[in-house]
C-alpha cells in the first residue's frame, strides 16, 4: 500500500469538499478498494471515509418506501430491514461473509457496480431511487455497465429509497472461489407489475430481463416463464462458466425466485 492521507468527515458537505481535492477517493467499507490498494492497483492520495457521517447510516421504513443510508453496512440492513423488506434483508444477509457484511456498505457497493455484486440486482428490481449529494437518480438510469454508473466525479450516494414490493425474492448461485454471484436473480412483484434483475451474468453488468417481466406481469407464475430464455450473447464467459451456462442459470434462478414467492 502506498502512503495516503485519511480524512473522516462528519457531514455530507464536508465529505463532498474533501472529495474535491486531487486524487481523492471515497471509502465506504473498502471491501473492494482496500484489497486493490494493498496490491497497489489503486493508489489514491486522499481517502475520504464516508463511514462516520451520522446522516448516512440508517434503515427506516417510511410508509411503502424503505430508506437506507448510503453508508449503512450490509449487516445493519440484514438486521433492520427484515421486517419491512425481508427479501432485501435476505440479500444483504448473504453478501460475502460476516467480516464483509460488517464493513461493506450499500453506497460503496452501488458506486462500485461490480458486475457480480448482489445489491445492484435488488436496487434495479425494486426500482429504487439513488439519492446523492446533488440529485436523485432512478435505478434504470444509474447502472450503466460493468463498474460504470451515472455518478459524477466526487458524487456521493447519500441514501437509497426502495419502493417496497408486494413480494420479492433473491436467488443466488455462487461462484465457488469468490462466493460472489455467478448468476443471481432478484424478482420483485410490484402492484404495477413484475421486475426481474439479473446480476453476475452480463458483460454489461446488472440488467433487467424484460421478457420475463412482461410474462410475470400478466401471470405471476413459474409456468408464465415457459419457453423464455436469456440470450447467451453478451453474457460473461470465464473459468467458472460459459455464457450459455450463465444465461441458463439466469432462467433457473428467476424461476426459483418466482416459485418461492407464489
Amino acid at each position, binding site marked *: 500500500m*502506498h502512503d495516503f492521507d485519511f480524512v473522516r468527515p462528519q457531514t455530507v458537505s464536508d465529505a463532498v469538499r474533501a472529495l474535491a481535492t486531487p486524487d481523492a477517493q471515497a471509502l465506504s467499507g473498502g471491501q473492494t478498494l482496500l484489497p486493490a490498494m494493498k*496490491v*497497489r492497483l489503486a493508489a489514491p492520495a486522499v481517502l475520504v471515509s464516508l463511514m462516520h457521517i451520522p446522516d448516512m447510516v440508517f434503515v427506516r421504513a417510511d410508509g411503502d418506501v424503505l430508506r437506507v443510508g448510503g453508508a449503512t453496512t450490509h449487516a445493519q440492513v440484514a438486521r433492520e430491514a427484515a421486517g419491512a423488506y425481508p427479501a432485501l434483508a435476505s440479500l444483504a444477509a448473504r453478501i460475502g461473509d460476516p467480516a464483509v457484511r460488517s464493513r461493506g456498505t450499500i453506497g460503496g457497493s452501488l458506486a462500485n457496480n461490480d458486475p457480480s455484486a448482489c445489491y445492484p440486482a435488488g436496487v434495479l428490481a425494486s426500482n429504487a431511487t439513488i439519492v446523492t449529494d446533488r440529485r436523485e437518480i432512478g435505478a434504470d438510469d444509474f447502472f450503466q455497465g460493468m463498474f460504470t454508473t451515472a455518478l459524477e466525479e466526487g458524487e456521493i450516494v447519500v441514501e437509497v429509497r426502495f419502493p417496497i414490493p408486494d413480494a420479492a425474492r433473491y436467488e443466488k*448461485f455462487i461462484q465457488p*472461489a*469468490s462466493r460472489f454471484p455467478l448468476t443471481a436473480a432478484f424478482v420483485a412483484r410490484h402492484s404495477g407489475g413484475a421486475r426481474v434483475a439479473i446480476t453476475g451474468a452480463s458483460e454489461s453488468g446488472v440488467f433487467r430481463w424484460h421478457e420475463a417481466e412482461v410474462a410475470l406481469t400478466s401471470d405471476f407464475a413459474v409456468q408464465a416463464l415457459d419457453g423464455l430464455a436469456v440470450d447467451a450473447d453478451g453474457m460473461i464467459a470465464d*473459468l467458472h*462458466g460459459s455464457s450459455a451456462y450463465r444465461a*441458463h442459470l439466469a432462467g*433457473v434462478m428467476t424461476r426459483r425466485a418466482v416459485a418461492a414467492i407464489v
Partner: protein
Amino acid sequence: MPKDGGIGDSPKRREDVRFLTGTGRYSDDINIYNQVYAYFVRSDVAHGRIAGIDAEAAAAMPGVLRIFTARDFEGVGGIPCGWQITSRDGSVMNEPKHPVLADGKVRHVGDPIAVVVAETLAQARDAAEAVVIDIEDLPAIMDMRAALTPDAPLVHEDMGTNLCYDWGFVEDNRQAVDDAIAHAHHVTTLELRNNRLVANPMEPRVALAEWNAAADEYTLYTTSQNPHVIRLLMGAFVLGIPEHKLRVVAPDVGGGFGSKIFHYAEEAFCTFAAKALRRPVKWVSSRSEAFMSDAHGRDHVTKIELALDENGKFLALRTETLANMGAYLSTFAPSIPTWLHGTLMAGNYTTPLIYVNVKAVFTNTVPVDAYRGAGRPEATYQLERVVDKAAREMGIDPVDLRRRNFITEFPYATPVAVEYDTGDYHATMDKLLALSDHAGFEARAEESRRRGMLRGFGIAHYIEACGIAPSNLVGQLGARAGLYESATVRVNATGSISVMTGSHSHGQGHETTFAQVVGDMIGIDPAQVDIIHGDTARTPMGMGTYGSRSIAVGGSAMVRATEKIIAKAKKIAAHLMEASEHDIELKDGRFTIAGTDRSVAWGDVTLAAYVPHNYPLEEIEPGLEETAFYDPANFTYPSGAYGCEVEVDPQTGKVTVLSFTAADDFGNVINPMIVEGQVHGGLAQGFGQAMMENCAYDADGQLISASYMDYAMPRAADLPMFTVDSTCATPCTHNPLGVKGCGEAGAIGSPPAFVNAVIDALQRGGHDVTHIDMPLTPDRVWEAMQERGVRDA
C-alpha cells in the same frame, strides 16, 4: 485398553495449546536485530528473453541497500534436483539449469528476475516498482502434447527438447501387455486429466537468514518440512557452505502438504545476501506470490486401458501419461510421476500384466512437485475410474468387480516391482458397505428422484505406499538422498526425556504422538517426554516429513533408540539391585526383578546414570542418551475403501456431497483422534481437487486462477460430516510398531470415489456421461449433461 496417554489412547494435541492461543512461533514471528527486507521482482510474462534490467533509479531510492540480479550469482550453483530418472532408452533425464535468479530468460510467470533489499519492506517494494525490466516476449509453451512436437519452441534451448524423460515401467512387460490388450474379451479405455493444484498452506513461505562474521556461520529460518535436506541441498550444491557452518531451523510451520519439502531460490537468496550485506535478510511470501512461486501439484494427462476377460478378471493394464514438470525441475519432481506413481498401478488387484509409460514435459508454468499423496493420487484416480467404467460397460456391479480382482494372499508381489506385506481388502470393503448403509441406497435414490434430484453412490478402493525405502533401493531408482529417519533419546537425570527427531511436524501432531510412543515403552507419563524437531543444530541428521512416513520411519527410529535406552537402563537397575540384567523387567516405569517384589523406579535409574556413585563404571558408560537411525526394509501399504454419496441438481449441475465413508487400514494406530483428523484433512483436500480447485493458465501462460477470487478452496460448509473408521487393521509386518501411515490416504481415495458417485448419479438420471474431468464444478457437470442428453426411457 490403552494406557492413559499411551499407544492407542487419544490424548488431546499438546501443540494445539500454543497454536490455538496465538503463541506459536512461526518463521515470520522471528525477527533479528538489524534485519533488512527482500522483495522479489518477478516475471509477469510466461516466456521471454531478458533484454535489459535497469535498476539504477531504484537503487538510489530511500532505504535501498542493494539490488541483486543473476549477475550477482555468477559462480553460485543452481537449485539442484534430488532425483534422476532414466529413460526407456537408457539415457538419463534432461536436467536444465535452475539459477537462483533468472539468467537470460524468464520461463514462467513468477520467475524471479531481481531482488531489492531495503531497510523496510515498504521501501523494498517501492524500489521494486522502479526496477525496469525489458523482456522480449517468446511464445509460451503451455500444452504438453504441443510441447513435444518437433517444431515446438523450447523452454530450455540448450537441451534441444521439452522432454525431460520417457519412462517405461516395467519395460520388460510392454510386449506382453500389448498382446493381452489386443486379444482381450473387453478393453475399457479412459482419457483424463489430473488437474493442477496449488498447495495453499495457511502459512505462506518465509526465509530469514543471518551470517555471523566472527564464526563465519550462517543460520537460516525457513518454512520447511525437512531442514536437514535444505541444509544439504543449499549448502552443498548452491552456496558451498559446509554443514557445520550452516544451521537450518524450521520452527512452527503452518502446513506444507508437500510444497515445503523443496529447496527454493528464496532460501538460497536470503542466505547469500545475508553475508553479502552483512545484515540479516528476511523474505515473507505474499499469498499472491505463493500462487506463482510455490511448487504446484499433479497436472497429468493420462490414457488408461484395462483389459478384462468375460468374467471381469483383470488381464492387463496399460497407461500413458504426460506429466507436467513446469519450467524447471523442483527438488523431487521427477520421482512423482514415476516411482511414486507407476509402482502403485496394481492397486488392490491381481492384474498380472501392467505397463506404465510416463513422458515428463517442460512447459512455461510454475514447477510441479509432490502434493499430498504425490503420484499415488494420480495412480489411484485413473485406476479406480477405469475400474468403475469397466464395471458399467460390462454390466457388473462395481463392488463385485472389485471383489473379483482383490488380492487376498500376502505377501503379494505386484508386476510393478513392489511387495505388499499385509492387507484385507474384503474387510475394508465390507466395513464401508455397512457403515455407509449401501443396502439402503436405492431407497434414498428414489427419495431424491421424487424431489427432482439425481443421487449417486461412488466407491474407490485405494492402495498407498508410505515410508519410501530402503535407501539402497531408492538409490538404485535414482534418488540422490537416503530415506532413513533418525532419533536421539536423551534421558535427563531426573527421568524426563528429550527426544530429538529428524521428522518434522507441520500440523501432524508429532509432539503428542511421539511422546505417547516413548512414554508407553518406558511406562511413564507422556508429559515427561518432549519432542524436539526442526533444527539442524539440535536434531540428528534426518530426512523430514512427507509421504506419510513419519510414524513408520521416524517412529521406528524412536522405538529403536528407546530400546537401547531400556537395555542400558536395565543394566543399571540390575546393578542397583545386585541382580542379573536378564531378570529385570520394566513395567509402568519400574524395574523389577522377575518373580520378586524388589524394584527400583525409573527416576532412580536415570539419576544413577548421571550421578554414578553406585554404578558399574567398569562395564558401562555413565549417562543415558541413545541415537538410532532406522532404514525400513520396505514401504508400508495402507489401504482402504471409500464411499461417497452425492446429489446432483440437474438444473444447475451443482453437486452436493451427502455423506462420505472411509474404512481405512492404517495398521496399528498410535492416537486414533489424530489419525481421524489426518483423514479429515486429506479428504478435504481430495474434495477440493475433485470439486473445485483448479489451477488454470491461459494460452499465453498467464495464471488466471492466481488468487482466492478464482482459485476455489474447500470450506467446511462444502463438505459433509465424514464417517471415518480405521478398525480393519492389518499391522505392518516389518516395522516395530506395526504402523503404516495415514496422512495422504484421504487425498488419494476421495477424488475417484466422488467422481464415480457423480457419474453414477448422472447415469441414473439417464445421462450417458462416462467421464468429466476434475474439478467437477457445476458448469462442467451441466455442460456434460447438455452434451449427453437424456437417454430414452
